[in-house]
């Protein structure tokens, strides 16, 4: 068991830990610091070098996504211009990385790869973050309701959780976009690109959110079931605190750790899901720049143009690896029992 107030923190405050060497006489008042479990965990996390490195990598990709227009402007290219003059008769680029096209251009279409790369960071992060927020919200609310209310509400929600978790998510992820498109537009087979792009974006978020909340809800429900028998909840109830406040003021702060742990582990899995579904052709569609799409297009040119394939492959692997390791570190920081 670790000391709750870490020694280093105390020493910084000028207090000595050793009672013998501590100045007697005019006893300096040791400034005790109140720190919540979350603050302790964050302090632990700050000391974890691997976690900080992974956070740095994640921040780097976020910056790329945020400043994509600026970076593309800096290079002087955009994602859609076709540089057909730089392709040979067989559609292979005649140039590799140059000062004009930093990562070269796409075979066949001749679009600038650097611009598509930096813009490609956007859909991954937007979809993953949106889905993480939605699933965390729905999962927490459902878990709280099921665990705290009990009775038929619990039975219904638990059944829905079991039902969602027993569905083949990937098969639905393939089947649903076809249907969603028919809801958005009159005739799915002749829909124009912008409609398809929008429909696909929403259906991706919808499917991932629909299948994502259940596992968190189950976790929260279990936590609430054990917490709700504790004295402080009973005290709040006896004092006549309204149910809403018991749920969100008393219970929720105690659920911060499981929520943070599960969302930080979920985020990379949604990035993988977005890229994977897009790679299969059921996620985002052209002309949206997306790493999954680039990987899918690049498989035919992997010998002639390795950079085309390897850039998005490395980017997505590094991003997901960093986020997974960060998630593990966050779990260790919040739950010292699982420490490596």
């Amino acid at each position: 068991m670790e000391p709750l107030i870490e020694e280093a923190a105390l020493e910084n405050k000028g207090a000595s830990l050793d009672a013998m060497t501590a100045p007697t006489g005019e006893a300096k008042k040791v400034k005790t610091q109140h720190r919540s479990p979350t603050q302790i965990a964050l302090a632990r996390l700050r000391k974890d070098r691997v976690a900080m490195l992974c956070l740095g990598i994640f921040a780097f990709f976020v910056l790329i996504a945020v400043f994509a227009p600026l970076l593309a402007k800096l290079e002087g290219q955009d994602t859609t211009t076709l540089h057909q003059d730089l392709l040979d008769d067989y559609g292979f680029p005649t140039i590799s990385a140059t000062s004009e096209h930093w990562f070269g251009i796409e075979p066949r279409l001749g679009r600038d790869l650097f611009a598509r790369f930096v813009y490609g960071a956007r859909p991954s992060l937007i979809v993953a973050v949106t889905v993480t927020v939605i699933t965390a919200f729905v999962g927490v609310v459902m878990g709280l309701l099921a665990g705290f209310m009990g009775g038929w509400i619990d039975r219904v929600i638990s059944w829905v959780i079991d039902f969602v978790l027993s569905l083949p998510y990937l098969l639905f992820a393939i089947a649903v976009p076809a249907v969603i498109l028919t809801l958005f537009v009159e005739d799915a087979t002749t829909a124009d690109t912008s409609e398809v792009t929008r429909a696909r974006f929403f259906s991706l978020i919808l499917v991932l959110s629909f299948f994502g909340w259940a596992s968190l809800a189950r976790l929260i429900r279990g936590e609430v079931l054990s917490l709700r028998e504790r004295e402080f909840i009973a005290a709040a109830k006896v004092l006549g605190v309204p149910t809403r406040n018991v749920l969100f003021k008393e219970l929720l702060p105690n659920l911060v750790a499981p929520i943070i742990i599960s969302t930080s582990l979920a985020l990379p899995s949604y990035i993988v899901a977005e890229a994977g579904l897009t790679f299969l052709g059921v996620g985002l569609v052209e002309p949206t720049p997306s790493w999954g799409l680039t990987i899918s297009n690049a498989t035919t040119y992997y010998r002639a143009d390795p950079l085309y394939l390897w850039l998005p492959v490395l980017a997505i692997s590094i991003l997901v690896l960093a986020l997974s390791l960060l998630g593990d570190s966050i779990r260790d920081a919040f739950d010292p029992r699982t420490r490596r």
Partner: protein
Amino acid sequence: MLFYILRRVVSAISVVIVTVVTSFLLFFVAPTDPAGVICGPKCTPDRLADITRSLDLDQPASEQILLYFKGIAVGRDYSTGGVTRHCAAPCLGYSYVLGVPVTQLLANAVPVTLSIVVGGATIYLLFGVLIGTLAARVRGTTLDKAAVGTSLVIGSVPYFVVALIIALYATFLPKSQYVPFFDNPIAWAGGLLSAWLCLGLTNSASYTRYSRASMIEALGQDFTRTARSKGISERRVVYRHGLRAAMTPVITIFGVDVAYQLVNTIFTERIFQLPGLGMRLLNAFNQYDLPVLMGGVVVGATVLVLMNLAVDIFYTVLDPRVRLG
């Protein structure tokens, strides 16, 4: 025990029925014009009328769902281009795009998916447990840390990326293709080898970690100390006494994983160009072939539910400590 099994079976059936109903609502009731979607871009009024009548799309939704269930139970008839086709008993619909019953399409695809998963699962179970056990024996050494680190990295990189790189660069493996087992078992194994290795090696990463943790726990138990103090050889202690105890949780995860992979081999199938269930669904997606999509989802959900049921029941039989609440 009997009551427990009965209750699980009833709940499994309820999940399957609700899945069929929700997917039916999703595929045939929610779209404004399902017949037009199924009919496709080269649609003639005759064909549209055929589809509407055969699928009873002019009936109220509740009637349509009942007819779908009736089709699964006793089969139903479809008319196409003036010809009436009978779709035999577990009838999951009729693909107007391809002109074949959905059941037949999926029945052709299932052996492919099954072959991929069975071969891959054998590799990752054997390989993962072997490395995990070895790592547990040399716990704390550089070798152990290397094994755990490698498995963490492999487990974190997206599967489709790893599979793609293997498929593109491991050209020394036999060409990936599907030959039915009963036609030529050797060609069957050869054609699937690259997919098996890919699925097996990437998944063995997590099994290394499971079995390592499980093995470390088993080797710390009293019975291991007793076995050692009796003077039994270390090899026998590890592989006879330790491994047996360590395998129960691993086998449970294995059952759930196999069920999961049966409906999730899409990436493997797409990357290695194998015509399994996932590929069939992907093609149906590209052609807006709603009956096939619906059939695939229903079959996938049923397989998943049945496998989970089997694992649960098997687990209670395997481990008598499990209390049935």
